[in-house]
């Protein structure tokens, strides 16, 4: 992977100037490369990783992993059904996977009832959905490579040879 992408994946706010210095490139070249990545859809968007457990006043959210068994359709396989499912705003992630079921969804809702209602009223009745299994998330330890913990203290002594 291009090092520009590696840097941005770690910190999306790194400036073009800083990236240029790090990689000994021209700022304009970095800018052009990033523009190209955005245009090609390699870079989809920039966002902050937020530890929602630390936000007390935030509307509480529950998340569930939902396994979905579906009947594939002629010519389009799973894609058509998957699309009908992932377009629901409640679905934050949707993966087609190998194994005993077909789709794995991550669904978010205000509370248990909201998620249950989505499953019962929107997801399960879909024509090609054969069955669902819902797992509610209890605690997040690590997400997208980030350990959800307060910053660790520096354990090195402050000065050494």
């Amino acid at each position, binding site marked *: 992977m291009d*090092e520009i992408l590696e840097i941005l994946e770690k*910190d999306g706010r790194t400036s073009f100037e*800083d990236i240029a210095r790090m990689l000994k490139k021209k700022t304009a070249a970095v800018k052009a490369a990033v523009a190209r990545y955005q245009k090609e859809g390699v870079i989809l968007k920039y966002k902050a990783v937020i530890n929602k457990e630390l936000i007390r006043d935030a509307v509480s959210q529950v998340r569930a992993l939902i396994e979905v068994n579906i009947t594939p359709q002629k010519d389009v396989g799973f894609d058509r059904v998957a699309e009908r499912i992932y377009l629901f705003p409640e679905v934050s992630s949707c993966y087609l996977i190998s194994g005993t079921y077909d789709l794995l969804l991550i669904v978010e809702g205000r509370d248990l009832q909201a998620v249950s209602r989505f499953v019962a009223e929107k997801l399960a009745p879909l024509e090609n959905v054969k069955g669902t299994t819902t797992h509610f998330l209890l605690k997040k330890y690590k997400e997208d490579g980030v350990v959800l913990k307060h910053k660790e203290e520096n354990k090195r002594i402050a*000065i050494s*040879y």
Partner: protein
Amino acid sequence: MSVTRKVKKLQPSGIREFFDLVLGMKDVISLGVGEPDFVTPWQIREAGIYSLEEGFTSYTSNKGLYKLRLGIARYLKNRWGLEYSPEEEILITVGASEGMDLALRTLVNPKDKILIPVPSYVSYGPLTELVGGEPVYIDTTPYDFKLTPELLEKYAAKKPKALILNYPSNPTGVSYTARELGEINRILLKYRILCITDEIYGELTYDFEHTPFATLKGAKDNTVYLDGFSKSYAMTGWRVGFAAGPRDIISAMNKIHQYTIMCVSITSQMAACEALESGRRSVEEMKREYRRRRGFVIAELNRMGLECHMPQGAFYAFPSIRSSGMSSIDFCQKLLKDQKVAVVPGTAFTPMAEGYVRISYASSTNSLKEALNRIGVFLEKRRPV
């Protein structure tokens, strides 16, 4: 109780006071640290923990676990094409530091001259003095901190016993290409000078491939090669290093090692085995990160008028601070007091490095950025009107 004359004569580090000042201060951004900011990769830590759970709490053979020596022999072969016998030519040491001590104790007779290019890591001179040898410091500051063939040739005439060569260098980050090392090797062989190489930062070489000295033509029988896990695998606190060299020298080093150290902690040795097995990816990742920080730091330093060569390895920048009009120690103390940023005065590494400071970029990009900003503010405030 009286302390021996030899120990009394040892120079205490001149900047102890400055170090104490840093250690006593809170909320300092320190670019004065001589070790990685990464913690040891998890799979390596896990291997150490598992070895404890399994009850590996005993001594190992003096030379170190055979499995580790074999792993090192394979690494040296696969990575550099170097052939060392794990039975007789490799010794596991408490960091490269112990390896250096053992090598000097094994090779230096009283009054023997040992060449030490400076600025250098702080232990070489004192360890030489402890065994009664005579350190001969070669000032490389006028040559971009490099030991040039001309310079070495000049000092070779003094009939030294050995040269201590550390590359990539702490504190300057300077390293040597294969061609440059070839020149050095040619002179060493010509004058029959042994080479003790400290290649602890070898894996952190950025602009070209590191060349272990022992790979040079005719060098292997003339070289004690010291390396370890501290810098490349972020394992400083585990204290595992190794020495590789001719069997008679390794066997002599092991004689001292068996009486003084016995063996390296088995937990650390087990963890080091895992590092060799699965740590390659982490090494490459950390190296890429250091290289990026290097580009950033050097560009920033030069921009603010602290002239700095591009270091080829390790994780140190060694800029000149002459444009500030301050001495090294003055610069460091004032920077610490004014801006709470710690860097190490060049004079910590030799009096000849007056006018330089060592900046470690083994810190997160955010800390580096903040620290460099503060250095910028510091310089701006003190700019003569």
